[in-house]
């Protein structure tokens, strides 16, 4: 059998194995054409496309590091002052605990800041902090004495009202009894 014979056989085989292609296939493919094709910018450019699958923790860490690096790069070494680290921590909490807990933590953090601010201003304020369950509408999270001798109180569900000293004592008694 010569080389030409084999080539002839290959040519015949090509013809008989040229099976019809499903007509809808071309349409299926065309439907996948991206709406925004990325144009080629020229010979000196390259396209880098990365498809990464990483854990939530790694993603959160990467975001924090990137943010801190960006801020440092832009010249402000004190990243704390921008609240960036705090926000990043919140982001990590959000990833790790599924949102709700992160929001709770954020509210407590906000209240803590508020409490510190009031203390700085010399207000008569008491903060019960994390001992109060989030959403508890009967427990006092913070109390602030007003000029009229009354008390402005903030409950665990973040609702507030102004009460008298007597009412405050009653509320605190109930809280102690519950505990």
């Amino acid at each position, binding site marked *: *059998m010569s080389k030409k*014979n084999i*080539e002839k056989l290959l040519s015949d085989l090509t013809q008989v*194995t040229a099976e019809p*292609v499903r007509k809808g296939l071309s349409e*299926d*493919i065309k439907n996948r054409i991206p709406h925004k*094709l*990325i144009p080629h910018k020229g010979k000196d450019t390259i396209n880098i496309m990365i498809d990464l699958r990483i854990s939530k923790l790694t993603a959160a860490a990467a975001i924090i590091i990137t943010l801190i690096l960006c801020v440092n790069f832009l010249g402000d070494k004190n990243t704390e002052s921008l609240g960036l680290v705090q926000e990043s921590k919140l982001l990590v909490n959000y990833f790790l605990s599924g949102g709700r807990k992160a929001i709770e933590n954020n509210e407590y953090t906000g209240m803590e800041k508020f409490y510190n601010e009031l203390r700085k201003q010399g207000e008569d304020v008491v903060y019960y902090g994390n001992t109060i369950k989030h959403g508890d509408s009967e427990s006092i999270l913070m109390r602030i004495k007003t000029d009229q001798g009354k008390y402005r109180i903030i409950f665990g569900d973040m609702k507030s009202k102004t009460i008298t000293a007597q009412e405050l004592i009653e509320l605190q008694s109930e809280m102690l009894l519950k505990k």
Partner: protein
Amino acid sequence: MDKQPDSLAVRLKSADRLAAAELVDLYYEQIYRYIRRMGFGYAASEDLTQDVFFQAWRHIAQLRSDKMLRPWLYRIATNAARTQLRKKRRDAFLDESELVDDSSQSWEKIENKELLLQLKKEIDNLPTKLKQVVLLHYMQHLTIAETADAICVGQGAIKSRVNRALRKLRKQLEIKNEKNNE
């Protein structure tokens, strides 16, 4: 077959969606048949063909020369098929009944059907490197230069592989013939 491939490549590079559709019309049958001839089933071949074009659109920047459009597509197809084969053993997803459709009318008209079926079997049994050049050069009608571009080796190596593949096929068919004659 290649309708103004140069201008098509230029339009593709400028993110022309019509050019992307034109690319499909021109090559989807070729690419599908190439993948089928590599031994994939109907469904797997369709999926892979879709992937080939999708990758082509995504990596259009890699198309260095306008004239290399066809071999470039075949290179993507070859790599996609190779990756798929690595992921899964071919036998695991290939329906044996899809391998050779010898019941079709096109086969009935052929006089030397047995010989062709034998040839097909021998091509499938060739080492991957030799099988690729046979499929690309003889069955997909790529030139030696295009075949070389499609599998990223020199033209000399392609010529050598073609010769080795033909020798091997000839030898196998002769052995089979002798056995039949006995």
